Protein backbone atom coordinates (compact mmCIF):
# COMPACT_ATOMS: atom_id res chain seq x y z
CA UNK A 1 0.00 0.00 0.00
CA UNK A 2 1.40 3.36 -0.98
CA UNK A 3 0.10 6.18 1.09
CA UNK A 4 1.18 9.58 2.14
CA UNK A 5 2.19 10.14 5.76
CA UNK A 6 -0.08 13.18 5.71
CA UNK A 7 -3.05 11.10 4.54
CA UNK A 8 -6.11 12.06 6.59
CA UNK A 9 -7.36 9.26 8.75
CA UNK A 10 -3.95 7.72 9.33
CA UNK A 11 -3.51 7.22 13.07
CA UNK A 12 -1.06 9.72 14.56
CA UNK A 13 0.84 9.77 17.77
CA UNK A 14 -1.03 12.18 19.98
CA UNK A 15 1.04 15.33 20.23
CA UNK A 16 0.71 16.97 23.61
CA UNK A 17 0.00 20.72 23.72
CA UNK A 18 2.98 20.84 26.05
CA UNK A 19 5.13 20.77 22.90
CA UNK A 20 4.81 24.56 23.09
CA UNK A 21 7.54 24.20 25.73
CA UNK A 22 9.99 23.43 22.91
CA UNK A 23 9.29 26.89 21.58
CA UNK A 24 10.14 28.25 25.02
CA UNK A 25 13.49 26.45 24.82
CA UNK A 26 14.26 27.90 21.39
CA UNK A 27 13.34 31.45 22.40
CA UNK A 28 15.15 31.33 25.74
CA UNK A 29 18.41 29.96 24.34
CA UNK A 30 18.50 32.01 21.14
CA UNK A 31 17.44 35.43 22.55
CA UNK A 32 21.01 36.68 22.32
CA UNK A 33 20.37 40.43 22.87
CA UNK A 34 18.60 39.54 26.12
CA UNK A 35 21.45 37.58 27.68
CA UNK A 36 24.49 39.33 26.17
CA UNK A 37 25.26 41.24 29.39
CA UNK A 38 27.57 41.01 32.39
CA UNK A 39 25.13 41.77 35.22
CA UNK A 40 23.61 40.34 37.29
CA UNK A 41 26.56 38.09 38.05
CA UNK A 42 26.18 34.83 39.97
CA UNK A 43 29.07 33.22 41.88
CA UNK A 44 31.41 35.43 39.84
CA UNK A 45 29.88 34.25 36.51
CA UNK A 46 28.75 37.05 34.17
CA UNK A 47 25.06 36.77 33.21
CA UNK A 48 25.94 35.65 29.66
CA UNK A 49 27.57 32.49 31.00
CA UNK A 50 25.43 31.47 33.97
CA UNK A 51 22.18 32.17 32.14
CA UNK A 52 23.07 29.90 29.23
CA UNK A 53 24.31 27.15 31.55
CA UNK A 54 21.13 27.52 33.62
CA UNK A 55 19.07 27.05 30.45
CA UNK A 56 20.41 23.51 30.13
CA UNK A 57 18.75 21.84 33.13
CA UNK A 58 15.61 23.89 32.49
CA UNK A 59 15.48 22.59 28.90
CA UNK A 60 16.05 19.08 30.19
CA UNK A 61 13.10 19.36 32.57
CA UNK A 62 10.83 20.86 29.90
CA UNK A 63 11.68 18.05 27.47
CA UNK A 64 11.00 15.55 30.24
CA UNK A 65 7.57 17.12 30.86
CA UNK A 66 6.70 16.67 27.19
CA UNK A 67 8.03 13.11 27.31
CA UNK A 68 5.90 12.30 30.33
CA UNK A 69 2.79 13.84 28.79
CA UNK A 70 3.16 11.86 25.58
CA UNK A 71 4.62 8.62 26.87
CA UNK A 72 2.23 5.71 26.76
CA UNK A 73 4.63 3.24 28.33
CA UNK A 74 4.91 1.29 25.10
CA UNK A 75 7.65 1.27 22.45
Amino acid sequence: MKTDASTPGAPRRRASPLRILFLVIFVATLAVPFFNRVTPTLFGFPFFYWYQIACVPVASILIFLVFRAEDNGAE
Partner: protein
Amino acid sequence: MHLPYPIATAVFLALIAFVIILGFTAGRWKSADLHSIEEWGLGGRRFGTWISWFLIGGDAYTAYTFIAIPALIYGAGAVGFFAVPYTVVCYPILYLVFPKLWKVAQKHGYITGPEFVRGRYGNRWLGLAIGVTGIFATMPYIALQLIGMHTVIGALGIPGHIPLAIAFLVLAAFTYTSGLRAPAMISVVKDLLIYLTVIVAIIVIPAELGGFGAIFAKIPPAKLLLPTPPAHSTGAYTGYATLAFGSAMALFLYPHTTTGILSSSGPRVIRRNAALLPAYTIMLGLLALLGFMAVASGVSTMPQFADGFKRFGTSFSVPALILNAFPGWFVGVAFGAIAIGALVPAAIMAIASANIFTRDIYSQFVTNASAGSETKIAKFFSIFMIIGALVFILVIPNTYAVQLQLVGGMWIIQTFPAIAFSFFTRFFNGWALLICLAVGIFTATYLVTLNHFLGSLYFFHILGWTIPSYIAFATVILNAVVAAILSPIFNAILSDRAQDETTALDYV
Protein backbone atom coordinates in the same frame (compact mmCIF):
# COMPACT_ATOMS: atom_id res chain seq x y z
CA MET B 1 63.96 8.66 24.86
CA HIS B 2 63.39 11.43 27.39
CA LEU B 3 59.83 11.74 28.61
CA PRO B 4 59.13 14.99 30.48
CA TYR B 5 56.03 13.60 32.23
CA PRO B 6 56.77 9.94 33.09
CA ILE B 7 53.92 9.39 35.58
CA ALA B 8 51.32 11.08 33.38
CA THR B 9 52.52 9.08 30.41
CA ALA B 10 52.33 5.79 32.34
CA VAL B 11 48.76 6.45 33.53
CA PHE B 12 47.78 7.60 30.06
CA LEU B 13 49.15 4.48 28.37
CA ALA B 14 47.57 2.20 30.98
CA LEU B 15 44.13 3.73 30.32
CA ILE B 16 44.55 3.42 26.57
CA ALA B 17 45.65 -0.21 26.93
CA PHE B 18 42.61 -0.91 29.11
CA VAL B 19 40.10 0.44 26.61
CA ILE B 20 41.81 -1.36 23.75
CA ILE B 21 41.33 -4.67 25.56
CA LEU B 22 37.75 -3.63 26.25
CA GLY B 23 37.30 -2.85 22.56
CA PHE B 24 38.42 -6.32 21.50
CA THR B 25 36.32 -8.15 24.07
CA ALA B 26 33.21 -6.04 23.36
CA GLY B 27 32.25 -8.31 20.48
CA ARG B 28 31.17 -10.97 22.97
CA TRP B 29 28.90 -8.59 24.87
CA LYS B 30 25.19 -9.34 24.35
CA SER B 31 26.62 -11.75 21.87
CA ALA B 32 24.98 -12.35 18.57
CA ASP B 33 25.94 -13.24 15.05
CA LEU B 34 28.43 -10.51 14.11
CA HIS B 35 28.26 -11.63 10.49
CA SER B 36 25.00 -9.72 10.21
CA ILE B 37 25.44 -6.05 9.41
CA GLU B 38 22.59 -5.17 11.80
CA GLU B 39 24.71 -6.66 14.58
CA TRP B 40 28.14 -5.41 13.49
CA GLY B 41 27.05 -1.98 12.31
CA LEU B 42 24.11 -1.24 14.59
CA GLY B 43 24.69 -3.38 17.67
CA GLY B 44 21.46 -5.23 16.87
CA ARG B 45 19.25 -2.18 17.63
CA ARG B 46 19.02 -3.15 21.24
CA PHE B 47 20.86 -0.58 23.39
CA GLY B 48 18.67 0.63 26.24
CA THR B 49 18.40 4.10 27.75
CA TRP B 50 21.72 4.14 29.61
CA ILE B 51 23.96 2.60 26.98
CA SER B 52 22.37 4.88 24.38
CA TRP B 53 22.99 7.83 26.66
CA PHE B 54 26.69 6.99 26.86
CA LEU B 55 26.93 6.07 23.19
CA ILE B 56 25.15 9.11 21.72
CA GLY B 57 26.92 11.34 24.25
CA GLY B 58 30.28 9.86 23.32
CA ASP B 59 29.32 10.25 19.70
CA ALA B 60 28.17 13.87 19.67
CA TYR B 61 30.55 15.34 22.23
CA THR B 62 33.89 14.32 20.76
CA ALA B 63 37.53 14.81 21.72
CA TYR B 64 37.70 17.47 19.07
CA THR B 65 34.90 19.33 20.85
CA PHE B 66 36.75 19.08 24.15
CA ILE B 67 39.85 20.63 22.60
CA ALA B 68 38.30 22.98 20.05
CA ILE B 69 35.54 24.68 22.06
CA PRO B 70 37.78 25.79 24.96
CA ALA B 71 40.39 26.75 22.34
CA LEU B 72 37.79 28.94 20.62
CA ILE B 73 36.88 30.55 23.94
CA TYR B 74 40.57 31.00 24.67
CA GLY B 75 41.23 32.63 21.32
CA ALA B 76 37.98 34.37 20.37
CA GLY B 77 36.06 34.67 23.65
CA ALA B 78 32.29 34.66 24.13
CA VAL B 79 31.38 33.48 20.62
CA GLY B 80 32.84 30.05 21.45
CA PHE B 81 30.05 29.60 24.00
CA PHE B 82 27.58 29.05 21.12
CA ALA B 83 28.29 25.37 21.74
CA VAL B 84 25.95 25.55 24.76
CA PRO B 85 22.76 26.83 23.04
CA TYR B 86 23.69 24.57 20.10
CA THR B 87 23.64 21.47 22.27
CA VAL B 88 20.40 22.58 23.95
CA VAL B 89 18.26 23.31 20.89
CA CYS B 90 19.37 20.08 19.23
CA TYR B 91 17.31 18.06 21.75
CA PRO B 92 13.80 19.26 20.89
CA ILE B 93 14.81 18.48 17.29
CA LEU B 94 15.98 15.02 18.39
CA TYR B 95 12.71 14.44 20.24
CA LEU B 96 10.43 15.61 17.42
CA VAL B 97 12.15 14.17 14.39
CA PHE B 98 14.35 11.17 15.02
CA PRO B 99 12.09 8.65 16.79
CA LYS B 100 10.33 8.53 13.41
CA LEU B 101 13.58 7.57 11.73
CA TRP B 102 13.98 4.67 14.15
CA LYS B 103 10.48 3.37 13.45
CA VAL B 104 10.59 3.49 9.71
CA ALA B 105 14.15 2.12 9.72
CA GLN B 106 13.27 -0.84 11.88
CA LYS B 107 10.20 -1.64 9.84
CA HIS B 108 12.12 -1.72 6.56
CA GLY B 109 15.53 -2.85 7.83
CA TYR B 110 17.26 0.42 7.02
CA ILE B 111 20.57 0.97 8.79
CA THR B 112 21.37 4.46 7.42
CA GLY B 113 19.61 7.79 6.86
CA PRO B 114 20.13 7.76 3.06
CA GLU B 115 18.45 4.36 2.86
CA PHE B 116 15.29 5.83 4.32
CA VAL B 117 15.27 8.63 1.76
CA ARG B 118 15.89 6.13 -1.05
CA GLY B 119 12.94 4.06 0.11
CA ARG B 120 10.72 7.08 0.60
CA TYR B 121 11.30 8.47 -2.89
CA GLY B 122 12.23 5.27 -4.69
CA ASN B 123 15.29 7.15 -5.90
CA ARG B 124 18.67 5.49 -5.48
CA TRP B 125 20.48 8.53 -6.88
CA LEU B 126 19.11 10.71 -4.10
CA GLY B 127 20.22 8.04 -1.60
CA LEU B 128 23.65 8.01 -3.21
CA ALA B 129 23.99 11.80 -3.06
CA ILE B 130 23.02 11.92 0.62
CA GLY B 131 25.28 8.98 1.42
CA VAL B 132 28.29 10.48 -0.35
CA THR B 133 27.64 13.84 1.36
CA GLY B 134 27.68 12.01 4.69
CA ILE B 135 30.92 10.16 3.97
CA PHE B 136 32.67 13.32 2.76
CA ALA B 137 31.51 15.27 5.81
CA THR B 138 32.70 12.46 8.08
CA MET B 139 36.20 11.91 6.72
CA PRO B 140 37.64 15.25 7.96
CA TYR B 141 35.69 14.76 11.20
CA ILE B 142 37.56 11.50 11.89
CA ALA B 143 40.78 13.31 11.01
CA LEU B 144 39.98 15.97 13.61
CA GLN B 145 39.58 13.31 16.27
CA LEU B 146 43.16 12.37 15.45
CA ILE B 147 44.21 15.97 16.01
CA GLY B 148 42.66 15.87 19.47
CA MET B 149 44.63 12.73 20.22
CA HIS B 150 47.75 14.08 18.54
CA THR B 151 47.66 17.18 20.74
CA VAL B 152 47.62 15.27 24.02
CA ILE B 153 50.26 12.78 22.84
CA GLY B 154 52.40 15.75 21.78
CA ALA B 155 51.74 17.48 25.10
CA LEU B 156 53.11 14.45 26.94
CA GLY B 157 56.31 14.92 24.95
CA ILE B 158 56.03 11.62 23.06
CA PRO B 159 57.72 12.41 19.77
CA GLY B 160 56.81 11.48 16.22
CA HIS B 161 53.75 10.17 14.44
CA ILE B 162 54.26 6.50 15.30
CA PRO B 163 52.16 6.48 18.52
CA LEU B 164 49.27 8.09 16.69
CA ALA B 165 49.53 5.61 13.83
CA ILE B 166 49.58 2.70 16.28
CA ALA B 167 46.55 4.03 18.14
CA PHE B 168 44.53 4.26 14.97
CA LEU B 169 45.60 0.92 13.60
CA VAL B 170 44.42 -0.63 16.86
CA LEU B 171 41.20 1.35 16.51
CA ALA B 172 40.75 -0.06 13.00
CA ALA B 173 41.37 -3.57 14.33
CA PHE B 174 38.82 -3.53 17.14
CA THR B 175 36.26 -1.74 15.00
CA TYR B 176 36.70 -4.53 12.46
CA THR B 177 36.27 -7.33 14.98
CA SER B 178 33.66 -5.92 17.39
CA GLY B 179 31.67 -3.41 15.36
CA LEU B 180 29.48 -0.91 17.19
CA ARG B 181 29.69 -2.83 20.45
CA ALA B 182 33.30 -1.63 20.89
CA PRO B 183 32.63 2.11 20.98
CA ALA B 184 29.42 1.49 22.96
CA MET B 185 31.37 -0.25 25.71
CA ILE B 186 34.34 2.14 25.61
CA SER B 187 32.06 5.19 25.71
CA VAL B 188 31.07 4.28 29.27
CA VAL B 189 34.72 4.44 30.40
CA LYS B 190 35.36 7.55 28.34
CA ASP B 191 32.45 9.48 29.81
CA LEU B 192 33.20 8.52 33.39
CA LEU B 193 36.77 9.79 32.88
CA ILE B 194 35.57 12.98 31.16
CA TYR B 195 33.03 13.77 33.89
CA LEU B 196 35.67 13.10 36.54
CA THR B 197 38.17 15.37 34.78
CA VAL B 198 35.70 18.21 34.29
CA ILE B 199 34.37 18.09 37.84
CA VAL B 200 37.86 18.09 39.33
CA ALA B 201 39.07 20.81 36.94
CA ILE B 202 36.10 23.04 37.67
CA ILE B 203 36.74 22.80 41.42
CA VAL B 204 40.53 22.76 41.61
CA ILE B 205 41.57 25.27 38.94
CA PRO B 206 39.29 28.15 40.01
CA ALA B 207 40.46 27.57 43.60
CA GLU B 208 44.05 27.95 42.43
CA LEU B 209 43.21 31.06 40.43
CA GLY B 210 41.17 32.82 43.15
CA GLY B 211 37.62 31.89 42.12
CA PHE B 212 35.47 32.39 39.04
CA GLY B 213 35.14 36.13 39.70
CA ALA B 214 38.91 36.50 39.51
CA ILE B 215 39.06 34.40 36.32
CA PHE B 216 36.40 36.43 34.51
CA ALA B 217 38.00 39.67 35.74
CA LYS B 218 41.16 38.77 33.82
CA ILE B 219 39.29 38.39 30.52
CA PRO B 220 39.45 41.46 28.25
CA PRO B 221 35.96 43.07 28.01
CA ALA B 222 35.97 42.59 24.22
CA LYS B 223 36.15 38.83 24.72
CA LEU B 224 33.83 38.55 27.69
CA LEU B 225 30.65 39.37 25.73
CA LEU B 226 29.59 39.42 22.11
CA PRO B 227 30.20 42.84 20.52
CA THR B 228 27.12 45.09 20.38
CA PRO B 229 25.99 45.25 16.74
CA PRO B 230 26.76 48.46 14.84
CA ALA B 231 23.89 50.55 13.42
CA HIS B 232 21.79 48.78 10.75
CA SER B 233 23.30 45.42 11.53
CA THR B 234 22.17 42.46 13.61
CA GLY B 235 25.90 41.82 14.13
CA ALA B 236 27.08 39.08 16.41
CA TYR B 237 23.53 38.45 17.65
CA THR B 238 22.30 36.70 14.51
CA GLY B 239 25.75 35.27 13.96
CA TYR B 240 25.64 33.55 17.35
CA ALA B 241 22.01 32.40 17.14
CA THR B 242 22.27 31.01 13.60
CA LEU B 243 25.52 29.27 14.46
CA ALA B 244 23.79 27.55 17.37
CA PHE B 245 20.56 26.68 15.54
CA GLY B 246 22.21 25.64 12.28
CA SER B 247 24.68 23.40 14.08
CA ALA B 248 21.78 21.84 15.99
CA MET B 249 19.90 21.11 12.75
CA ALA B 250 22.99 19.42 11.33
CA LEU B 251 23.99 17.40 14.40
CA PHE B 252 21.77 14.33 14.04
CA LEU B 253 22.09 14.21 10.25
CA TYR B 254 25.71 13.07 10.47
CA PRO B 255 26.12 9.37 9.73
CA HIS B 256 27.67 8.67 13.14
CA THR B 257 24.88 10.32 15.13
CA THR B 258 22.27 8.57 12.99
CA THR B 259 23.99 5.28 13.81
CA GLY B 260 23.88 6.15 17.50
CA ILE B 261 20.14 6.80 17.27
CA LEU B 262 19.34 3.70 15.24
CA SER B 263 21.30 1.44 17.58
CA SER B 264 18.93 2.24 20.44
CA SER B 265 16.18 -0.21 21.32
CA GLY B 266 13.32 2.07 20.32
CA PRO B 267 11.70 5.49 19.95
CA ARG B 268 11.02 5.68 23.67
CA VAL B 269 14.74 5.39 24.43
CA ILE B 270 15.42 8.23 21.96
CA ARG B 271 12.75 10.51 23.45
CA ARG B 272 13.91 9.80 26.96
CA ASN B 273 17.47 10.57 25.94
CA ALA B 274 16.39 13.92 24.52
CA ALA B 275 15.71 14.83 28.15
CA LEU B 276 18.79 13.08 29.59
CA LEU B 277 21.52 14.01 27.10
CA PRO B 278 21.59 17.72 28.11
CA ALA B 279 23.68 16.59 31.09
CA TYR B 280 26.55 16.48 28.61
CA THR B 281 25.86 20.09 27.67
CA ILE B 282 26.36 21.25 31.25
CA MET B 283 29.66 19.43 31.21
CA LEU B 284 30.54 21.00 27.85
CA GLY B 285 29.66 24.49 29.12
CA LEU B 286 31.92 24.07 32.14
CA LEU B 287 34.63 22.58 29.98
CA ALA B 288 34.38 25.53 27.57
CA LEU B 289 35.27 27.82 30.46
CA LEU B 290 38.63 26.05 30.73
CA GLY B 291 39.50 28.34 27.80
CA PHE B 292 39.10 31.37 30.05
CA MET B 293 40.94 29.60 32.86
CA ALA B 294 43.82 29.08 30.42
CA VAL B 295 43.83 32.83 29.73
CA ALA B 296 43.68 33.70 33.44
CA SER B 297 46.42 31.24 34.42
CA GLY B 298 48.83 32.79 31.94
CA VAL B 299 49.98 29.43 30.50
CA SER B 300 50.56 31.05 27.10
CA THR B 301 53.53 32.99 28.44
CA MET B 302 55.13 30.14 30.40
CA PRO B 303 58.38 29.05 28.75
CA GLN B 304 57.73 25.30 29.24
CA PHE B 305 54.61 25.54 27.04
CA ALA B 306 56.02 27.82 24.32
CA ASP B 307 56.88 24.90 22.06
CA GLY B 308 53.42 23.34 22.46
CA PHE B 309 51.60 26.53 21.54
CA LYS B 310 53.91 26.91 18.54
CA ARG B 311 53.07 23.40 17.33
CA PHE B 312 49.36 23.16 18.14
CA GLY B 313 48.20 26.78 18.36
CA THR B 314 45.24 27.56 20.62
CA SER B 315 44.39 23.82 20.71
CA PHE B 316 47.22 23.55 23.20
CA SER B 317 45.52 25.84 25.74
CA VAL B 318 43.60 23.10 27.59
CA PRO B 319 46.47 20.57 27.64
CA ALA B 320 48.79 23.33 28.92
CA LEU B 321 46.28 24.31 31.61
CA ILE B 322 45.96 20.70 32.74
CA LEU B 323 49.73 20.16 32.79
CA ASN B 324 50.12 23.34 34.82
CA ALA B 325 47.34 22.69 37.34
CA PHE B 326 47.50 18.98 38.15
CA PRO B 327 49.87 16.33 39.48
CA GLY B 328 51.24 13.85 36.95
CA TRP B 329 48.83 10.99 37.60
CA PHE B 330 45.78 13.19 37.10
CA VAL B 331 47.25 14.66 33.92
CA GLY B 332 47.38 11.06 32.72
CA VAL B 333 43.70 10.57 33.57
CA ALA B 334 42.63 13.80 31.86
CA PHE B 335 44.69 13.19 28.73
CA GLY B 336 43.51 9.60 28.67
CA ALA B 337 39.94 10.86 28.74
CA ILE B 338 40.59 13.13 25.76
CA ALA B 339 42.36 10.40 23.77
CA ILE B 340 39.64 7.83 24.49
CA GLY B 341 37.16 10.57 23.65
CA ALA B 342 38.75 10.50 20.19
CA LEU B 343 38.57 6.73 19.77
CA VAL B 344 34.83 6.42 20.50
CA PRO B 345 33.47 8.82 17.87
CA ALA B 346 36.17 7.85 15.37
CA ALA B 347 35.04 4.22 15.61
CA ILE B 348 31.36 5.13 15.25
CA MET B 349 32.13 7.43 12.32
CA ALA B 350 34.03 4.68 10.54
CA ILE B 351 31.21 2.18 11.15
CA ALA B 352 28.53 4.64 10.06
CA SER B 353 30.40 5.47 6.86
CA ALA B 354 30.88 1.76 6.22
CA ASN B 355 27.15 1.13 6.63
CA ILE B 356 26.47 3.87 4.07
CA PHE B 357 29.06 2.59 1.65
CA THR B 358 27.62 -0.91 1.82
CA ARG B 359 23.92 -0.14 1.67
CA ASP B 360 23.75 3.06 -0.39
CA ILE B 361 26.65 2.68 -2.78
CA TYR B 362 27.86 -0.91 -3.15
CA SER B 363 24.55 -2.76 -2.94
CA GLN B 364 22.80 -0.22 -5.14
CA PHE B 365 25.37 0.42 -7.82
CA VAL B 366 27.86 -2.47 -7.86
CA THR B 367 26.08 -5.68 -6.98
CA ASN B 368 23.37 -6.63 -4.55
CA ALA B 369 25.42 -8.05 -1.70
CA SER B 370 24.19 -11.03 0.30
CA ALA B 371 23.78 -10.65 4.04
CA GLY B 372 27.17 -12.22 4.82
CA SER B 373 29.21 -10.41 2.19
CA GLU B 374 27.51 -7.15 3.17
CA THR B 375 29.18 -7.26 6.58
CA LYS B 376 32.56 -8.12 5.03
CA ILE B 377 32.35 -5.12 2.72
CA ALA B 378 31.36 -2.84 5.59
CA LYS B 379 34.24 -4.09 7.75
CA PHE B 380 36.78 -3.44 5.03
CA PHE B 381 35.37 -0.01 4.30
CA SER B 382 35.60 0.91 8.00
CA ILE B 383 39.34 0.16 7.86
CA PHE B 384 39.61 2.22 4.70
CA MET B 385 37.95 5.19 6.46
CA ILE B 386 40.26 5.04 9.47
CA ILE B 387 43.44 4.62 7.45
CA GLY B 388 42.23 7.33 5.06
CA ALA B 389 41.78 9.73 7.96
CA LEU B 390 45.21 8.81 9.31
CA VAL B 391 46.90 9.48 5.96
CA PHE B 392 44.86 12.66 5.67
CA ILE B 393 46.21 13.97 8.96
CA LEU B 394 49.81 12.90 8.39
CA VAL B 395 50.04 14.24 4.85
CA ILE B 396 47.80 17.31 4.84
CA PRO B 397 48.32 20.26 7.23
CA ASN B 398 45.94 20.24 10.21
CA THR B 399 44.40 23.56 9.21
CA TYR B 400 42.90 21.91 6.12
CA ALA B 401 41.20 19.28 8.26
CA VAL B 402 39.66 22.05 10.37
CA GLN B 403 38.49 23.89 7.25
CA LEU B 404 37.10 20.75 5.66
CA GLN B 405 35.20 19.89 8.80
CA LEU B 406 33.76 23.40 8.76
CA VAL B 407 32.62 22.89 5.18
CA GLY B 408 31.45 19.36 6.00
CA GLY B 409 28.96 20.78 8.50
CA MET B 410 27.60 23.09 5.81
CA TRP B 411 27.21 20.13 3.45
CA ILE B 412 25.56 17.73 5.86
CA ILE B 413 22.89 20.27 6.84
CA GLN B 414 21.78 20.32 3.19
CA THR B 415 20.34 16.83 3.73
CA PHE B 416 17.89 18.26 6.30
CA PRO B 417 14.98 18.83 3.87
CA ALA B 418 15.37 15.38 2.30
CA ILE B 419 15.68 13.51 5.60
CA ALA B 420 13.82 15.48 8.30
CA PHE B 421 10.89 16.84 6.25
CA SER B 422 10.27 13.43 4.70
CA PHE B 423 9.11 11.95 8.02
CA PHE B 424 6.21 14.37 8.04
CA THR B 425 5.20 14.78 4.41
CA ARG B 426 5.53 13.29 0.95
CA PHE B 427 4.96 16.72 -0.60
CA PHE B 428 8.48 16.84 -2.02
CA ASN B 429 9.79 15.22 -5.17
CA GLY B 430 12.95 13.10 -5.06
CA TRP B 431 14.60 14.72 -8.07
CA ALA B 432 13.75 18.19 -6.77
CA LEU B 433 15.39 17.29 -3.45
CA LEU B 434 18.45 16.03 -5.29
CA ILE B 435 18.77 19.28 -7.26
CA CYS B 436 18.30 21.35 -4.10
CA LEU B 437 20.91 19.31 -2.24
CA ALA B 438 23.33 20.27 -5.01
CA VAL B 439 22.17 23.91 -4.90
CA GLY B 440 22.72 24.03 -1.13
CA ILE B 441 26.14 22.40 -1.27
CA PHE B 442 27.27 24.60 -4.15
CA THR B 443 26.05 27.86 -2.57
CA ALA B 444 27.48 27.05 0.86
CA THR B 445 30.85 26.11 -0.61
CA TYR B 446 30.87 29.25 -2.74
CA LEU B 447 30.11 31.50 0.24
CA VAL B 448 32.78 29.88 2.37
CA THR B 449 35.37 30.37 -0.38
CA LEU B 450 34.50 34.08 -0.26
CA ASN B 451 35.60 33.86 3.38
CA HIS B 452 38.76 32.03 2.30
CA PHE B 453 37.57 29.06 4.40
CA LEU B 454 38.31 31.05 7.55
CA GLY B 455 34.89 32.00 8.85
CA SER B 456 31.59 30.17 8.95
CA LEU B 457 29.54 33.40 8.98
CA TYR B 458 28.54 35.34 5.90
CA PHE B 459 27.38 38.94 6.05
CA PHE B 460 24.17 39.22 4.04
CA HIS B 461 23.03 42.69 2.97
CA ILE B 462 19.25 42.89 2.87
CA LEU B 463 17.23 46.12 2.55
CA GLY B 464 20.00 48.28 3.94
CA TRP B 465 20.64 45.93 6.84
CA THR B 466 23.66 43.76 7.41
CA ILE B 467 22.64 40.36 8.70
CA PRO B 468 25.46 37.96 9.53
CA SER B 469 24.38 34.34 9.36
CA TYR B 470 25.97 30.94 9.71
CA ILE B 471 26.38 29.96 6.06
CA ALA B 472 24.91 26.50 6.67
CA PHE B 473 21.72 28.00 8.10
CA ALA B 474 21.18 30.54 5.30
CA THR B 475 21.86 28.02 2.54
CA VAL B 476 19.64 25.26 3.93
CA ILE B 477 16.75 27.74 3.94
CA LEU B 478 17.48 28.48 0.28
CA ASN B 479 17.64 24.73 -0.32
CA ALA B 480 14.25 24.13 1.34
CA VAL B 481 12.54 27.04 -0.41
CA VAL B 482 13.75 25.93 -3.84
CA ALA B 483 12.70 22.35 -3.05
CA ALA B 484 9.21 23.57 -2.09
CA ILE B 485 8.92 25.47 -5.39
CA LEU B 486 10.35 22.75 -7.64
CA SER B 487 8.57 19.75 -6.08
CA PRO B 488 4.99 20.53 -7.22
CA ILE B 489 6.31 21.34 -10.72
CA PHE B 490 8.25 18.07 -10.93
CA ASN B 491 5.37 16.07 -9.50
CA ALA B 492 2.99 17.66 -12.03
CA ILE B 493 5.23 16.52 -14.88
CA LEU B 494 6.17 13.08 -13.55
CA SER B 495 5.13 12.25 -10.01
CA ASP B 496 7.31 9.86 -8.01
CA ARG B 497 4.67 9.40 -5.29
CA ALA B 498 3.90 5.85 -6.38
CA GLN B 499 7.51 4.84 -5.67
CA ASP B 500 7.22 5.28 -1.91
CA GLU B 501 7.93 1.93 -0.25
CA THR B 502 6.94 3.26 3.19
CA THR B 503 3.41 3.75 4.45
CA ALA B 504 1.84 6.32 6.74
CA LEU B 505 1.70 3.76 9.54
CA ASP B 506 5.50 3.44 9.55
CA TYR B 507 5.82 6.87 11.09
CA VAL B 508 3.32 6.88 13.92
